[in-house]
């Protein structure tokens, strides 16, 4: 239940899987330089579920793009398993916010999920089996023949999650994955992700502007604020594997943590 105070105190015995050191990112140069991220340090352990929460426009998406290797930071490093990231990496998969645009409309759901495997040279039979299995894992067994545009938003996002799972990366990065679905679907997807994480043991980093979502899902919540973004707080949630949309959110620890994050964000 420990809610620790400052980022410096978060020390872990095991070597972290993902390590961010002195990450700084800006666009432009000289007078017009726009600093987005300032000297960020993060550690994520193997099998951990980390939420990164912060107000809109604070630079969360930029941070995620740096973590995934889609953009190169100005300075600082991101490393996975001790290996420094300088581009998209085998151990990193991303679930994008914009599921409707990141799924390819000319492919069936199954082909979409199998596509990254095809890129890796996996044979047709094997990659289809893997895709089928992962579709089943997100609750879409036997739906592989459908096209993404024949599905609801929530189902499409499940496909995107299945695709990331099928890629079998060590770290799953999720950028506001549930921001464009309705509340009930959102709860279902949140619970799906929790289940998948505990059954598969995959490491997840999820970016969101929703404090409740961040707290509900994560083992550790990293709070970003200010411009350029800096880490203003790190909270270990300690809710364990079994969470419930009603009970967990009514838990005094949850309420306390939410208040603490809100204070943090207001004070900055």
């Amino acid at each position: 239940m420990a809610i620790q105070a400052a980022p410096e105190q978060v020390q872990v015995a095991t070597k972290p899987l993902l390590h961010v050191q002195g990450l700084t990112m800006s666009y432009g140069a000289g007078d017009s330089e726009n600093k987005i991220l300032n000297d960020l340090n993060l550690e994520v352990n193997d099998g951990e579920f980390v939420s990164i929460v912060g107000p809109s426009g604070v630079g969360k998406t930029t941070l995620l793009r740096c973590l995934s290797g889609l953009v190169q930071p100005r300075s600082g490093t991101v490393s996975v398993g001790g290996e420094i990231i300088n581009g998209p990496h085998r151990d990193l998969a991303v679930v994008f916010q914009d599921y409707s645009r990141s799924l390819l409309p000319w492919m069936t759901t199954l082909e979409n999920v199998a596509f990254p495997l095809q890129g890796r040279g996996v044979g047709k039979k094997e990659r289809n089996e893997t895709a089928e299995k992962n579709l089943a894992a997100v609750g879409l067994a036997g739906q592989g023949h459908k096209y993404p545009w024949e599905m609801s938003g929530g189902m499409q996002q499940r496909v995107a999650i299945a695709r990331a799972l099928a890629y079998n990366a060590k770290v799953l990065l999720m950028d506001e994955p549930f921001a464009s679905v309705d509340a009930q679907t959102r709860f279902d997807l949140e619970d799906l992700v929790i289940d998948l994480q505990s059954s598969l043991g995959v490491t997840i980093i999820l970016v969101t502007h929703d404090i409740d979502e961040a707290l509900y899902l994560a083992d550790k919540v990293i709070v970003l604020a200010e411009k350029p973004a800096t880490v203003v707080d790190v909270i270990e949630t300690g809710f364990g594997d079994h969470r419930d949309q009603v009970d967990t959110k009514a838990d005094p620890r949850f309420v306390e943590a939410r208040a603490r994050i809100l204070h943090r964000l207001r004070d900055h």
Partner: protein
Amino acid sequence: MKTSTKSLDWGLTTQRLLAVAALLAIWQVVIWSGTLPSMTPGVAALASSIGAALTSATFWSALAQTMTAAVSGWLIAVAAGTVLGLLIGSVRALDRSTSILIDFGRSFPVLALMPVVIMLLGATAKMETVVVALSCLWPVLVQTIYGARRMDSAVVDTVRIFQIPALLRFRRVLLPSATPFIATGIRISASIAILVAVGVEVLSQTPGIGRQITLAQQDQRWDSAFAYLFFAGLVGWSIASLLNFAEGRILKWNRQTND
């Protein structure tokens, strides 16, 4: 469409036929009133020469000549335009280097080159094919480049994250995402092909529908000139509808996502 009842559709068809009839009636009244030059044919003369054209060997061979030149020029343009367009559209430096040249080419009225082309190639079917191909190239090229260049940022990110190799990326991502645009280019250029083929025939007296229209007009056979014009329009219209239909069938996913 599907929801409208059969009787309603019949009503629409009747009204459409009535509209055509009204148009013809107006035409006839204008002829009688004498506002149009005396040579303009009336509805009856027009109908009989349309019928006559259908049984005349001259008409069918002229149609075949026009269609051969139009279709072969169009096919050449489609092949060249797609290949070049995919290449230019996916290589940024090439795209920038060629942009002014392509903007110039697409706004160039190729038919203005006719006297020059006739000097070089003569008033032959080959010349006609070349002019058609030159005119059809631009819409295919421009659309293909745009389609290849336009890839959605989310798709680009996805492809990068999953480290899709170049060839697979081309085959399964770039090509399908550019296909609707290529299809549009192909469709636009098909109408242009007929248009230019007839234009070439009008200007150069290369055998075909266009030449027959000019000949008929010079012989004062105005009714058959109008009949040929009618068929030229009919052919253009059929091709456009046919390609529209085919596009809807083949690119089902695109229509769906646009909804």
